[in-house]
Structure formats: C-alpha cells, structure tokens
C-alpha cells in the first residue's frame, strides 16, 4: 500500500510554537491535518488552504505639516488576493486632518466586508 503524499505543507502561525503541518485530502475531498499540537492548527490549516487572509498595515498620504503619512490598517484580515488592490487604494487616498484613530477610511473594500481604518489620530492643525 502506498503512503499518501501530503497535498500541502505549512507552518502554523497561530502561536510562537510554529508547528509543521501536513495537509491531506481523502477521496471525499475532506481535509485532514497532521503535525499540529493543538486544535488551532486545524483551523489555521483549513483557512490557509481554502482562503488565506492577512491583516494589512500601511500608510496613507496626509495633508499635514507634522505628519506626511498616516498609519492605517484593515480592521480584520483581508483575503490575500485583494491585498494589492487595497494597497493601491490606500496609497491613492489623501487624508485631511482631523482623523480619529479607528475612523473608517474605506468601507467594505471590494465587497469583502473588510474596512480600512486609521491606526493613529491626526489632530486639526492651526
């Protein structure tokens, strides 16, 4: 009987342990995971296999003497394939003070339900 080859190998990033995960698929297309030391490994592997997501952090240009760029981030993780478009959209924005930390700058980006928010406050200037 031949040993089944894993369809993918990955390192879990849920915690600093960094378990080396092996992913297998059975004849019913069901995913199984080995190498995980806790159940978070399974959740990570499934998400990473079917729809990998990342939190994106970058900066937007700001019309400000004290701060030419304002840090921004997605409020939650964004599907990976939307990252480049989000970066382009963020770089194309120009923020005018005042901006509050947490203020939504782009809502529901490309229908993903993910918002781009300011991650620092920028006060009104005199």
């Amino acid at each position, binding site marked *: 009987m031949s040993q089944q080859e894993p369809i993918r190998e990955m390192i879990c990033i849920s915690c*600093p342990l960094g378990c080396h995960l092996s992913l297998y698929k059975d004849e019913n297309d069901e995913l199984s995971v080995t190498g995980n*030391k806790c159940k978070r490994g399974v959740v990570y592997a499934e998400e990473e296999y079917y729809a990998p997501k990342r*939190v994106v952090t970058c900066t937007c240009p700001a019309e400000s003497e004290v701060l*030419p760029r304002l840090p921004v*981030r997605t409020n939650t993780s964004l599907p*990976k394939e939307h990252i480049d478009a989000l970066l382009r959209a963020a770089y194309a924005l120009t923020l005018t003070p005042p901006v509050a930390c947490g203020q939504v700058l782009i809502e529901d980006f490309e229908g993903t339900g993910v918002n781009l928010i300011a991650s*620092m406050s920028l006060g009104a200037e005199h």
Partner: protein
Amino acid sequence: MVPAASFYAMHCEGREGMKELQYDVLVIGAGAAGLAAALEVSRNNASCALVERESHLGGILIQCIHNGFGLEEYKEELTGPEFAERQIQAVRAADVDVFTDTTVTQLNAENDRKEAYCYSAVYGVLRISARAVILAMGCRERNRGNIRTPGTRPAGVYTAGLAQRLVNIEGYIPGKDVVIVGSGDIGLIMARRMTWVGAKVHAVIEIQPYPSGLTRNIVQCLNDFEIPLYLSHVVSRIEGKHRVEKVQVSPLTHGIPDDENSFEIQCDTLLLSVGLIPENELSKEAGVEINSQTNGALVDATMMTSIDGVFSCGNVLHVHDLADWVAEEARRAGAYAVGYLRNERPKRQMRIKAGANVRYINPAMFDPDNPDKLYFRSLIVKNQAKLQIKLDHKPVKELRLSHVQPSEMLHVNLKPKDVAGWNIMKDSVLEVSIE
C-alpha cells in the same frame, strides 16, 4: 503637552537662566516603558516628570505600523501607533508633567536628591530634581560598523529601523532592490513593508543556522512573498561606487565564509537588522553598573540599579521582543520607585545566577518574601525543554517549556511559597537553567 503658564509660576523658583523643578520621580524617555512607568508613578500618588527628547510621545512604537501589539496589555491585536495612543491618553489624563523636545544631558544621582540637566528648544535649560529616577531610554540599532562588513562605502546602506522610519513616517522609499542582513523581527517586518511599497526584496541573509525572528513573521513576511532566507550565510562584501550596486553573499563553513561558493546579488539597498543595544550612555556617566550580558543596568529584585533611587526598565534594561512585556516591566519599576520613596524596601535579597543554557536572567536578585518575575533567554533551540530553578543546588521548582529558542524571551513567576520552608542564607544563590 506643554505645561500651562501657571504651572511655571508654581514650580519654577529659578536662578537666572535656568528653571528648576522638583518632583518625587523623574522618568527619562517616553516610549512604551517610560509611559507605563510614569502612569504607574502617578497612580501611586507621587508627583512625576516625564522627559522625552523627541517632539512626540510613544518612542519607536509610532513607526511600528504593523500589528501584533497589545495582546497582553489590552487583550486585542493593535498596531504600534494604536498601542502608543492608548498609553499616551492614559498619561495625559493622569497627573504627569510631560516635557517633549527635551534632552537630558547629565544625571547626578549620587545624592538623595537626584538632579537631571535638560536642554530644550521649548523650555530652555531645566534642572529637574527628584528623589527617584526611572531610566527608560530604550535602545538603538547595531550598524555596519558593529558587524564590520568589508567593501566600499556607498549610499544605500541603512539600518532596518531607520528605513522603517523613512518609509512609515517621513514617506520616503529608501531603494528599489533590497537585500536584508539579519532575520530579526525588524528585518522581516521591513521585508514585507518594502514589498508592499513596490520594492523587490531579493534575499534575507542570516548568519545563524536558525532564524532570529518569530516563525509567524517568517511565514507572513518572507514565505508570502517567496523571499529566500539564507541561513548560515553572511554578506561578505558590499560593492558600489556612489550607490550600492551589488553584495557578495557567502555560506559559512565551520564559521568561516566559504569564498568558493559565494554568489552575488544585484541590489541598490542593504538593510541591516543585526541587533539592538540598550542606550545607556547617560546611565554609565551617572555611575550605574552595567551587566555585560545584557548591556543594560544590573538591577535588584525591585529593578533598582547599583545607585540607590535609580531604576531601569524596558529596552534600556534588556532588549525585549514584545512592547507588552516592556510596559509590564515598566509598571513594576514605577511601583517600586514609589515604594522606595516610602521606604518600602525588601527585607532581604539573594543573588540570581544564569545556569546551564541560559544566556542571561533579569533581574539579578530575588526577594524571597515577595512575588518576583524573572525574564530570561535561552542559549539553545529545543522543543519540550525543562526549566529548572535551584536554590543552593537543591531543586525548588521545575517547569516544562514547550519550545525555547534564543530569539524568544521567556519568563517565570516566583512566589514566596515556592521558596517557603527553605533555609535561605545571606549568600544563597538561585540558579535558573534549561535542559
């Protein structure tokens, strides 16, 4: 941020040309450590001055726009600026006098009342006296001189943190084709950041046989972008007349660069993420004794340095991995500083020794009558390691550590009951080892 005019009228007695101010506690540096320490001092009803040389509060957190902060302090995942903003709001709401754009150039700490000479474009020359001082100046980056990379001296060689400041705060992109030396977290974070601003990161070169940053950063900052990581390799030469043109990369064989198997990478920018050094020039001049393992002060169980009334916390004490732990440590330093003012000192303290496979342990003393928190670093990489704490060679506590590696700081809490019943003598030694 600027104290009101009435504040001056109340506090500045003043010889000509120099303003004089008096406080219970002076905190030097307003990054993650200084903000947490000052807040704690104020919460304990002592008067507090917080002095910061930059015009903004928050220190290096402001340029760390990536997420991963705050999981322990605020139980949610924040970016550096968000973490700083929460700390800053708390300090502003508290009774702390904040002096930005103010540099402490000299600290006279030998007397009961410590004096700090401060220079400021905003306040002029200040002399701040306080009964306790908390050192929270943070650290700076090691640079090309520290790792002695041969070659020409072209433009385009930056420390990773400087590049981070240029990109995230100033809004400049330092180069288009990048090679990164060192796989510390700042280097990894910058690999992703440079990619996300349109540069091409060609490689990360790490001298050690294992990565020095967190695994999650290897995955999200390198693997996501297929950036190769060369372990046990060094940049053996930098070439370029005016601007970096290429670097030579050599594998290490038995610790020696192997010229025959060297290769070149064309690039215009080299970022160095090769470690951090606690910024202790002020402390050393004041006479604070330094621990050669950490390059930070030697501190007792209350984080007091070799000088009575002078405390140290955060990255100026030892370089941390997490801002959350910096804030936690600084809060204790703040509480201990106020305790010192009230003559609440440990009844007895014993020496702590770094045992087998432990690079260093902080603090250097423990107080058997109060809870202690010990931070330490491993010398080895191991899964399922065992932490052993011995008092005068007899085991008192043993813990399993699921994973240890030199780049990840560890901690253990020691309670009075752990050593209760033990015959503790004046010269007793607590030894912490990993196996």
